[in-house]
């Protein structure tokens, strides 16, 4: 890593970013903070409510239920996507045309607008017109994601695996490619088994990149909104109402500003905490010169 010059004039270069992001982040965030401590009877008359909304939200089952579903969702997709992504990365062609070919096809789901991802799976899973739904129905499996909570959950999880596993695979692949050939030759001389090559060479070399992949996936899945909303709309009932879906329902649907704002702030604090972990991992990686 290069040594950086100390120069406080560099602030001038950062100033535009600072102003722009302050405009689009700090002002809205302050609005949220404002709402979270006030109450209103309409007509734009607000009065101080202190921490009431926070107390109400914390004792409200609704948020805890949404949080539980959210954690279950994030944990499940991580448990599937990370091993699957590594497995795919290990099996990817390392160079040449086929490597590029795989890279391009694998990236394709990542570049599809999120509501279209939802639409694709909504269509794909329908019993009457979807390939998946029709096939499952023909096999005699009772599958209907609009009425059956288990089927709804299976659909949004498979959808997320479809959408984002490639991200883990691409990052793991980037980590694998950075391993010098000499390591493999040494392992071959030692007659190391395939498993030992993976456990003692590939996995440690990939660990930094994998950490990034896990944190990114955790964070992005933690604020997922569009895809499950398009497919299930949070239903059947509230079965797939994740945190963001619940929040939007509360804020834009019912205009419960106070509770929604309190909810937002707690939501944001969780994200902040994870961001900090992410940042620490990133800067440690930089120090190691990866």
């Amino acid at each position: 890593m290069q040594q950086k010059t100390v120069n406080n004039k560099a602030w001038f270069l950062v100033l535009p970013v600072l102003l722009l992001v302050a405009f689009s982040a700090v002002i809205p965030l302050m609005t949220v903070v404002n709402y979270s401590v006030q109450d209103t009877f309409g007509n734009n008359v607000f009065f101080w409510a202190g921490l009431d909304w926070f107390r109400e939200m914390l004792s409200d089952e609704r948020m805890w239920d949404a949080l539980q579903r959210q954690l279950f969702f994030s944990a499940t997709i991580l448990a599937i996507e990370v091993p699957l992504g590594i497995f795919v990365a290990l099996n990817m062609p390392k160079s040449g045309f086929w490597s590029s070919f795989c890279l391009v096809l694998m990236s394709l789901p990542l570049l599809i607008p999120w509501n279209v991802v939802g639409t694709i799976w909504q269509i794909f899973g329908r019993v009457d017109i979807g390939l998946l739904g029709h096939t499952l129905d023909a096999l005699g499996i009772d599958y209907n994601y609009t009425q059956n909570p288990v089927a709804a959950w299976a659909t949004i999880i498979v959808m997320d695996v479809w959408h984002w596993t490639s991200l883990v695979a691409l990052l793991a692949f980037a980590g694998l490619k950075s391993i010098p050939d000499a390591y493999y030759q040494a392992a071959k001389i030692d007659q190391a088994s395939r498993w030992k090559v993976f456990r003692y060479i590939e996995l440690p070399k990939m660990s930094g990149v994998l950490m990034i992949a896990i944190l990114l996936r955790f964070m992005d899945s933690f604020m997922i909104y569009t895809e499950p909303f398009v497919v299930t709309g949070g239903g059947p009932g509230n079965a797939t109402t994740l945190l963001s879906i619940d929040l939007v329902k509360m804020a834009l649907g019912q205009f419960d500003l106070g509770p929604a704002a309190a909810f937002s702030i707690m939501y944001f604090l969780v994200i902040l905490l994870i961001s900090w972990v992410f940042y620490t991992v990133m800067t440690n990686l930089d120090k190691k010169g990866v």
Partner: protein
Amino acid sequence: MTDATADHAAPAERTTPRARTRRRGGGSVVVMTLYLLFLMLPIYWLINMSFKTNAEILGSFTLVPMNPTLANYATILTDPAWYMGYVNSLIYVVMNTVISLTVALPAAYAFSRYSFMGDKHLFFWLLTNRMAPPAVFALPFFQLYSSIGLFDTHIAVALAHCLFNVPLAVWILEGFMRGVPKEIDETAYIDGYSFPRFFIRIFMPLIASGIGVAAFFCFMFSWVELLLSRTLTTVNAKPIAATMTRTVGAAGVDWGVLAAAGVLTIIPGALVIWFVRNYIAKGFALGRV
């Protein structure tokens, strides 16, 4: 039965070395084929449906369109209410990309070259904005842009998307810039280049690929986002993603048109993906890796 196994054992033995070299040079074709098949099946089904009439979609179950029709695409490309959705999306996406890159370039340079008061905190604060859930910002943005009279304009969406795209661009560009040796800057200054001239004439061409990748990712994340763009627009700047809800009418869903609209939204990403294939991982990992 046993004879058959014995017969097969010999050729299997012979092919082992080849299989081993294949694994070292690449990977298992079977695994990749299965995985890519899994990825492509839903997309195939969408494309397949976009070429069918609604009668065929609902009436029969066919793996390829029996009477391929372009009517669904024609509906979209001739109706302004439809194709303006694409135009609106493209306008705010391009605006956002330009704004993000313009402000991110000098900032990324500052982060990669200098240490200054509060730089680490600032860098972290930028990251938290990339990670902020759009759902938290939907309502405040709605009120903010309504109060300053920008509601339902392209610039409102472009500015809102800066929330996550500016940090992304700064992180990606910083990742590319740290790869450029500092001696180049110093030599240029000694040769009498002023900072702006050095930056535009020498430095930017050096990190051209980085700028391209950052632009691609700004474009992409703005293109795929729906929640904020939908909240901030009603008619004049309505994005294609929100326009797609039009297909739900009194007579049920117009599946064929919905599928065609979906296919058309995939195209921009699919067109440029080849050029950034080697940087995809770096872009998604915010310029690290």
